[in-house]
């Protein structure tokens, strides 16, 4: 493998890993803080992609569509939390799985009713629609570099939020000991709503950013959901730092696996997960 090819695969791995991180961070927060298994997380990713397509056609610019879509998704997250998820925090995990699995079907049908079943594309914004030439035949799309950069920024923002702000402190306290945090006056209900909305927002924004490169099609959430769960399991449930490390690891293994060992590439990520779990059953990082 020559240097240009290696660089392309490396950039692809990082971009894929960071996008997975955005999804996995939301999932691991929702599970770590509220103890809810959210199978519908992929549906929020799909919602983001469809919103990106639908809004950018209406307002004419993808960045504006992303901002509007993010606000809409956070609003939807708050509504879902208040109406549905809030009542499932204390329930058995199986009940949560049944609820969120049903939600996947509901969201797919809603998507079909609202936007139809066709495949759609979202155009890359004008300023980013160029490719960086690497050799005389190969070049790397600038938009993918932008995606990685944006995901890194969001990752940094999430880190700062959780470790340096009062809100983050309350979130961590609520995760550590819910009753004690409540008795100290922290409004746990509001914290849960904020964390849930944040998770939904991250998933939707991931879908929106990915829409120009992944295209917008029915059932796009399920494929990414499985990888997302693998990342959360490898990284350790509830650990955002673990999600980042695991996502990059999965990105590298998956991308280079497909290039170097195409016959077994489908298995490699799961073999990685099995290996990590054999070594550390709780995942790489604690909460």
């Amino acid at each position, binding site marked *: 493998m020559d240097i240009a090819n290696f660089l392309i695969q490396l950039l692809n791995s990082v971009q894929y890993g960071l996008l997975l991180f955005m999804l996995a961070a939301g999932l691991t927060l929702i599970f770590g803080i509220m103890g809810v298994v959210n199978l519908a997380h992929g549906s929020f990713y799909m919602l983001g992609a469809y919103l990106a397509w639908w809004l950018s056609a209406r307002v004419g610019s993808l960045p504006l569509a992303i901002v509007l879509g993010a606000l809409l998704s956070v609003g939807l997250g708050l509504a879902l939390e208040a109406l549905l998820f809030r009542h499932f925090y204390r329930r058995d995990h199986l009940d949560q799985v049944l609820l969120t699995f049903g939600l996947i079907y509901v969201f797919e049908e809603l998507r079909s009713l609202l936007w139809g079943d066709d*495949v759609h*594309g979202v*155009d890359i914004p004008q300023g980013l629609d160029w*490719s960086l030439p690497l050799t005389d035949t*190969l070049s*790397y799309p600038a938009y993918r570099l932008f995606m990685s950069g944006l995901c890194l920024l969001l990752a940094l923002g999430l880190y700062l939020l959780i470790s340096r702000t009062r809100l983050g402190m309350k979130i961590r306290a609520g995760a550590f000991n819910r009753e004690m945090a409540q008795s100290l006056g922290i409004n746990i209900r509001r914290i849960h709503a904020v964390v849930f909305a944040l998770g939904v927002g991250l998933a939707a924004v991931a879908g929106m950013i990915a829409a120009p*490169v992944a295209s917008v*099609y029915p059932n796009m959430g399920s494929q990414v959901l499985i990888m997302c769960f693998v990342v959360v399991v490898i990284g350790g449930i509830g650990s955002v730092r673990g999600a980042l490390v695991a996502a990059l690891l999965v990105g590298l293994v998956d991308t280079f696996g497909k290039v170097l060992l195409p016959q077994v590439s489908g298995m490699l990520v799961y073999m990685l997960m099995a290996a990590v779990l054999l070594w550390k059953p709780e995942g790489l990082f604690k909460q």
Partner: protein
Amino acid sequence: MACFFAGGGAAKFMRDYAAAGLKGKIPLYGSGFLTEGVIEAAGPAAEGVITTMHYSDSLDTPRNRQFRLDYAKTFKMQPDVYAVQGYDTGLLLVLGANAVKGDLSGSKPALYKALESAVIDSPRGRWTMSRAHNPVQDIYLRVVEKGENKVLGVAAKALADSGTGCRLG
């Protein structure tokens, strides 16, 4: 470079191909499903992609023009190969049902005989059944030009599959 994709993957592949800078340099060939129903989604990345398939939107025959007009009037949408395949299936079923006078649960051999000897006047061209019960049809060579699959010519005339491993009849 030849490939096979359909649906979401097709649009994504064509976009990635163009973004990797390969579009003008290495020609892209594929089965027709690469460009069916996804040209709008793939955008300018689909221009110039060469495919082969048993149908093309721009097939310039009276039968196809009539079909496309009727379809657009009824459904307010343009038909694609999936619509044509559904339509042909309907034609075949009607033909079979007429042969057994509507009694589909009754005498099966008569139904099968009717279906096997069917000549379907389809928007894709006239086709008959092969021994393996697949259509014997023309395969067209197409290229994407200005958002449409333009027919360049016939890639294979009256192509009948060999039915390898098929144990019918």
